[in-house]
Structures are given as C-alpha cells and as structure tokens.
C-alpha cells in the first residue's frame, strides 16, 4: 500500500494553490506547479473553475499533464482554441468591464516586498545588456500582472526575496499605495498572495508590503523570517493545515502519475 500520509513541500504548494481558487473563477495557469494546483482544484477542491492559458486555449481540462502552455494536451481538451491575441484582449476586457473573475498564477526568480517580480535577468557584476544570469523573459507574465489579480509562486530563499530586485518584469504594487496608478497601471489589480514552499504571504491593505499570512505544518514563522531577505511581519501568521491523504493520492495517482512536475520521494 502506498503511503499518502506524508507529503512533499511541492505537494503542499500545489494544495495551497488549489485551496486559493474560488468558485467559478477563471484561472490563468502556466505549466508546472500552478497547473497541478489548478488540476487539483478542477478535480476536487473547486470543480467550477475555468483554467485558461496564455497561448489562447480556454477552459482547459487536460487528461495528461501538459508540458507547455501550447501543448497539444491543452489544445485537444479545451473549449476554445483562440490565438494568443484574443487571450490578451479577453484579459484586458475583463478589467475594462470591471469584472472580477480572473485569478492568475505567475512565477519568478526574484521578488521584492511589494510583489514586483523579476523573471528576466540577475545582473551580478553586469547589467541588463550583459547580465550574470539570463532567464526566458516576460512571456505572458507582464500582461497578466498588468490586468489581473495574481498569485505568485516562488521558492522561498533569502536571495530571491530581496528588498530591491534587479529588473521588474511583472509589476506588483510598485513602491506601495498608489504606486500602480502613478505609472499608469490599473490600481484595482495586483498581487494577492505569494505561495512558497514555506508559507503563504499576503499584502497589507494599508502599506501594500508583504506579510506572512500562513505557515505550513512543516514550516514556522521563524523559518520564513530567516529565509526572507527583507523585513517581514510574521505577527499575523496562522497555521495552514496540510492536505489529506486522499488529496495526495489524487495528485500522485490521477493528476501527475508520470511525475512530470511533482517528484514523489521513494519510500
């Protein structure tokens, strides 16, 4: 008998994602953990949600885990195959119509206390033109962070959670209250939370600074403080309960049996 009582940090993250998707929400997912989380939501936690991907595939319900947002695994199991430009138009019109149905998952290499995210490059001794480490670039993230509320997925490390990031690929709350409006961004959209392998951060309504909202059964507020490169308020933190064995069984046996994104530890 497989043991589903123990779970990995990644499985905890996927579960945290699924729990944060609400009824009837339209969920913008990429591949990797957000997709596992959204699949879990669709399967059990919140079946009324509608996953969409930035390539333009709408209301996806893949049978096998896709490896990219343009994968045939999405394309063959969705409601509509739009070109990417329609996705962009849809996302902008949701904001123009003042709808509040979209929630988007984005990832990044660096994040600052206001939820601004870098997925372009780390300068090191260089600069934007000749950086130490180069990443893919924005992809759909910049547009998503412009028009949608986001949940940011990160690995919780000191060097990734830093007071000042080298390059803002996707805008968060900029420099605090009113920061988005100042640069021409919709002020009523922005990052809602950051889900990491150590906990769930939210943004203070007054200051727009990140604070710890939840820690996991295997983490603690102290661990989060230690692994965050800026001063973070942990005084409001509560425990986020871990997933049930049944949830873990569904992730391992039904959603990602090939372990494309979630590696199961050997017993």
């Amino acid at each position: 008998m497989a043991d589903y009582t123990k779970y990995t940090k990644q499985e905890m993250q996927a579960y945290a994602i699924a729990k944060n998707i609400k009824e009837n929400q339209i969920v913008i997912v990429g591949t990797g953990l957000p997709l596992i989380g959204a699949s879990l939501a669709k399967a059990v936690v919140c079946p009324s949600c509608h996953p969409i991907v930035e390539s333009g595939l709408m209301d996806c319900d893949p049978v096998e885990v896709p490896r990219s947002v343009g994968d045939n695994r999405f394309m063959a199991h969705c409601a509509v195959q739009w070109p990417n430009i329609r996705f962009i138009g849809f996302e902008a019109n949701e904001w123009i119509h003042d709808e509040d149905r979209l929630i988007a998952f984005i990832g990044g290499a660096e994040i600052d206390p206001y939820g601004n995210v870098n997925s372009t490059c780390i300068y090191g001794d260089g600069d934007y033109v000749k950086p130490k480490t180069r990443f893919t670039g924005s992809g759909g993230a910049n547009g998503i962070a412009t028009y949608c509320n986001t949940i940011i997925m990160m690995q919780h490390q000191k060097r990734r959670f830093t007071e000042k990031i080298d390059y803002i690929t996707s805008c968060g709350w900029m420099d605090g209250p009113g920061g988005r409006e100042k640069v021409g961004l919709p002020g009523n959209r922005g990052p809602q939370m950051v889900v990491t392998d150590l906990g769930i951060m939210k943004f203070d309504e007054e200051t727009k600074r990140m604070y710890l909202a939840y820690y996991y059964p295997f983490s603690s507020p102290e661990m989060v403080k230690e692994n965050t490169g800026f001063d973070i308020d942990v005084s409001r933190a509560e425990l986020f309960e871990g997933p049930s064995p049944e949830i873990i069984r569904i992730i391992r046996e039904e959603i990602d049996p090939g372990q494309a994104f979630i590696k199961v530890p050997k017993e």
Partner: protein
Amino acid sequence: MNKVYSLHDAVAKFVENGDCICFGGFTTNRKPYAAVAEILRQGQTDFTVWAGPAGGDWDMMIGEGRVKAYINCYTANSGYTNVARRFRAAIEAGKLTYEDYSQDVLMLQLHAASLGLPFLPVRLMQGSGLMKYWGISEEQRKTMDKVDNLKAVEIENPFCPGQKVVAVPVPKLDTAIIHVQKASPDGTCIIEGDEFHDVDIAVAARKVIVTCDELVSDEFIRRDPTLTRIFGECVSAVVHAPYGAWPSQCYNYYDNDPNALREYDKASKYLDAEDAKAQLAKAAAKAEKAAAKDPENAKLAEAAQKAVAAAKAAEEGTSIPMTFKDYLDKWVYSVKDHGELLDKIGGKRLMSLRNAPHLGYSNTHLK
C-alpha cells in the same frame, strides 16, 4: 498558380541575408524546424528577428551566429529546458544584440503588422523594466536599418486626456516561415488547432514560405472553406515537408519528440568540445572546493570525485559529452535534405510520435 518548391529552392529564393524574419509556432508546437535546418545548411545569416514565443528554433540560429538582432519575449523549449541555453549563453557573454518586449506586446505588434497599422498603442509594460531598459539603444538602433529607431514611447491617449499609454513600433517583416498541416499548390493553408501568430505573419510579411505535412490539391483544400486559414495569394512558396515540425508538435498529426528535445537540452549546454572541457573543469573545481569546505560530507566528496573524473575524461578526449555542435552535425548538417532526416530519425520512432486521435496527442512517444 503553382507555388510548389523543394525545401532547398524555397529557402534559397526567399530567405536572404539580413532579412527581418519571423517563424510561426509556439515554443514546442508547430515550429518550422525543417525550414530552420535548411537555412542552417544554406548559410543565410544576419537576421533581424521578431522571435515570438520561441524555442529550439531560434536557439539553434543564435548558437550558430545567424542573428544580428533578436527581439525576444520568451525563449525556451518549455517543459524540457527552463531557459534556452544558447540564447542564455550568448546574452551572458554579451554576444547577442537583443531587445525584450512582453509576449502580449510582441504578439499584438505582429497582429498590428497584419492589420497594416502605422504603430500600436498599448496599456502594457508600464512601470516595468521592459519600458525602463532598452537592449538596443536609440543610437545603436539608428545605425540598424531593420530595427526601429525607438523601442517604445509613452504618450498621452488623445481620446482620453491624462491617460498614459505606450506606443510601440509595428514589425516590418521581410520573411515569414510557418509549418501547417495542409496546403495546396496555390498557397491556400489549413491550420488545425491553435493558429498562434501564424496567420498574422503570413499576411504581414513580403515573402512567406509555408511547409506542410500534407500537400493537397487546390480543389480539395477549398471543399470546406471554414477550415482554410491563409489566402494563397499571401504565400510565396509551398513546400511538402512531412514531419516538418519535428521535434516539435503538430496538432492532429504528431506529438513532440521527447528524446530529441531532451537530447537538445543536454547537448546545447556546451557550445562545442572546447566549451565542454572548460565548463567541466570549472564544475570540477567548484565541486572540489565545496568538498574541501565540508570534509565530513561523503556525498560532496563523491560528487567532487565524479566531477573531476568527468573533467579529466573530457580533457584527455576519452569522453566528451555531446555538444550543441554535435547535435547540429547529427540532425542538420550530416543530412542533405529533409528526406534524409526522416530516414535518420527512423520509421518506428516517427510512428511512435503519431497522434492518437482519441486523445489529441501520442500516448506511445515516451516508450
């Protein structure tokens, strides 16, 4: 009019040095790899590139030094390589002239080009590094005839005083290359599944090469005009190239080839044998340093031993890992045309990639 060409002749006639060029497809889906390989074989170079959501297609061209200016929004065989490796290495070495837009902006720019718009206003990229930093400076841009003089300009919306919007230039494409499921000799195309930006660039470019999995008659292709996506008069050349998107996917036809994409992921880590030696030596030194710092740690000691052995084997030439150059020799330069490539991949392997109609992808391709 019959526009059917051999792959060789189409690329020789319609792809020229210095072209401003765009490929269709999306990272690992319907990428025109057969045509990319032919360009690599023929040697055209100095491209100004509107890359779109790129994968191994542009990574290979960058690795082979064919790119003069690279306009990027995302480059990776996603799911197989986190960041395309030759793209990354070229940028980190300061050897690639490039610009970043967000994917949304770049795709809208390509669409604007298809609509014939003079420029494009967007409410995107505001407040981000995409506005703040220019990969190609204004001075540099003015010396490059295929690159617009400005990356982006913040302007006021004339219809909404006080509202800041971003004006971006519209691509002026010389050449577009797309791979489709079906085309007919007069250039009419059927694209099955998501069209991505392919229709946009086919309308926008002066020269358009279409490679297709199936070449069908002009009568057949218009039996159901709800399926046709590209007007034949937009197309310069039609090339019959079955599996022409390999190793990427082609909806309703075949899946990606995970073995090839994994092979490329590993090989593209090293430019060539010299680079492999240098990188392995560097990795060995790093592993030894880590092991020396923590002498009690058996895992680190073992890792260091392995790394040193690998570096030594590479240096002595007894075992050099496959490199980017090796991959290209194997899959591009050692074959004279696309037909030879198909023979080299092999019938069994190609058949295993075929789409299972009840799923929409292959369920045999991992075996």
